[in-house]
């Protein structure tokens, strides 16, 4: 291992060290504030490492040159930056969550540690160019998030209804994602059988090789489950609903973003023949996701379930540029931009939900809870409104620019059916986003206090400002988009 390689790996090392240090700290001195700050500083150090040690325009390969395990290039730099910032934001949300729910604070330290571990998994995925690193990344991220989903049940002393639901969600996630991992592994095994290598690029460009097709199909099915694409979506709403809101934000953004990144790398590295073969499956899965996800959200009254269905639809949108992977640089840029836009917007949405709904009793997650929010808390309401408009892809928000990129990439690759489905999905989607805005604009029924002050809300405001500023002037983000 050369020094250059070690330098390139430093973000991963820094993240792993952060987890270790935090774990030892938690073992010997339980103080969740201390652990929080250690984790934040560690993630910040990793972020600095990403940029300090980033290999200019070229790529740095870690592992055997023929079959690199990790590829540290500007694609990695973009996604690693995004994931590290995301993890820091989720840590802030967790801190807010624990402040709101003191009964769940037992073991808060481990929550931060698991968050860092999940971030490490995401970093590995952002660099993965090999099935081994892919699987390590997927499982690192997946197992950490499973524990986080079931969090309140493990830590809190009294079991209320919500905790039962968390446990149930965690167990459901564990079992189903184990099944999906099995599919993934089986697919990888079959591909290995035919190629003799675990590198993405090593898949032989043989047309009509049934085993390769079978392996690709199984691999895609496993990935589709983790991305919660229709028809693998059934777990999504239950898990989103059961998990603590910051964890929901984590699995809605970090997991999805990292898997999309690695899927894009996989499809771009595969021989064009095989990418072409995978196309119909991706088209069908994406189209189904866009339509079914939006339809499911249509009359949903629980805001977390609604956002879960919305994220299913968004994964459908994201698959459009992903399937254009073989056809040019626009695809990678569109994916990167949309992931960034989706991450900022979704984090914003969940941070508002975290502030408004958490600790508000059993009906806290109902849309009716948001009734009159624009009058009760004008700033928070306005910021949630902008977030929802961004999710719907209305101009002057980041979501619009992202959708524009998707249209551009889809049209560039002549994927007319998926592009048409994006339009249909967006139209349906507008309905339920506007329904929440409508509820927020109605006159408040009175008596309902909106808890939380500036301390609870600055993250929401910051993310909203970011999505509006970048929505109006996206050039800084655009300039920074990676090429694959």
């Amino acid at each position, binding site marked *: *291992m050369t020094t250059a390689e070690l330098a390139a790996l430093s973000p991963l090392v820094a993240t792993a060290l952060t987890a*270790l240090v935090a*774990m*030892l700290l*938690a*073992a*010997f001195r*339980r103080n969740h504030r201390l652990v929080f700050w250690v984790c934040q500083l560690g993630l910040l150090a990793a972020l600095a490492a990403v940029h300090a040690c980033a290999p200019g325009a070229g790529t740095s390969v870690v592992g055997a040159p023929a079959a690199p395990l990790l590829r540290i290039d500007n694609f990695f730099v973009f996604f690693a930056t995004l994931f590290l910032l995301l993890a820091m934001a989720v840590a802030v949300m967790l801190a807010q969550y624990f402040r709101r729910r003191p009964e769940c604070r*037992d073991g808060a330290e481990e929550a931060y540690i698991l968050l860092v571990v999940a971030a490490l998994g995401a970093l590995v995925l952002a660099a993965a160019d090999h099935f081994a690193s892919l699987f390590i990344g997927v499982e690192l991220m997946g197992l950490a998030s499973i524990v986080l989903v079931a969090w309140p049940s493990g830590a809190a002393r009294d079991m209320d209804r919500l905790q039962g639901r968390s446990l149930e969600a965690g167990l459901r996630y564990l079992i189903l994602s184990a099944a999906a991992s099995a599919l993934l592994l089986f697919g990888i095994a079959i591909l290995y*059988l035919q190629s003799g290598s675990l590198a993405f690029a090593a898949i032989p460009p043989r047309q009509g*090789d*049934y*085993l390769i097709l079978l392996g690709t199909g199984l691999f895609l099915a496993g990935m589709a489950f983790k991305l919660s694409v229709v028809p693998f979506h059934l777990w999504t709403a239950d898990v989103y609903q059961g998990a603590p809101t910051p964890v929901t934000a984590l699995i809605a953004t970090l997991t999805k973003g990292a898997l999309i990144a690695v899927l894009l790398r996989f499809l771009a590295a595969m021989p064009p023949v095989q990418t072409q073969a995978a196309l119909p499956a991706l088209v069908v899965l994406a189209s189904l996701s866009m339509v079914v996800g939006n339809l499911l959200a249509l009359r949903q009254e629980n805001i977390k379930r609604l956002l879960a269905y919305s994220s299913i639809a968004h994964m459908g949108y994201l698959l459009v540029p992903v399937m254009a992977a073989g056809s040019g640089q626009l695809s990678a840029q569109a994916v990167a931009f949309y992931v960034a836009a989706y991450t900022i917007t979704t984090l914003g949405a969940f941070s508002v939900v975290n502030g408004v709904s958490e600790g508000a009793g059993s009906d806290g997650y109902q849309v009716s809870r948001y009734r009159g929010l624009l009058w009760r808390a004008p700033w928070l309401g306005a910021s949630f409104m902008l977030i929802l408009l961004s999710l719907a892809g209305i101009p002057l928000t980041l979501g619009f620019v992202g959708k524009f990129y998707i249209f551009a990439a889809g049209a560039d690759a002549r994927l007319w059916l998926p592009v048409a489905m994006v339009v249909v999905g967006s139209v349906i989607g507008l309905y339920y986003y506007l329904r929440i805005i409508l509820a927020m604009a109605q006159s408040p029924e009175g008596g309902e206090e909106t808890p939380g002050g500036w301390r609870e809300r600055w993250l929401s405001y910051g993310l909203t400002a970011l999505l509006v500023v970048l929505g109006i002037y996206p050039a800084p983000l655009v300039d920074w988009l990676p090429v694959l």
Partner: protein
Amino acid sequence: MDVYAISQGQLWSFAIYAGAVFLLVGAMLAVGRLAGQRRHEKATDEPFESGIVSVGDARLRLSVSYFVVAILFVIFDLEVIFLYAWAVAFVDVGLAGFIGALVFIGVLLAALAYEWRVGAVDWGPRQRSLHEREDR
């Protein structure tokens, strides 16, 4: 089975075999349903085990420390597997391998220290978590 036989599309034998399996299972179920007598009495729904009425519930609560111990076992078992591999290639991987193994063992040690401090190895009936001890 020859891999290429499948990839060349010669799936006939496999398809026939699979079809036969489904046919057989389906036939057995159908015959049982058609020929067997159907009655519903008090004992029909009870679990049947060698003529003995079952006792208690199948859903036992296992002590959490059982899982902790199991996980500890897996951790150390896996460690040994990796270290065997390292030992075999000790000369080839040289110093880098040695450092790698040190890191690996260090991480496992940290994990062990954590488990220990948290109370995972305090098994037995009087197990207490760290917080309880601090509360005391």
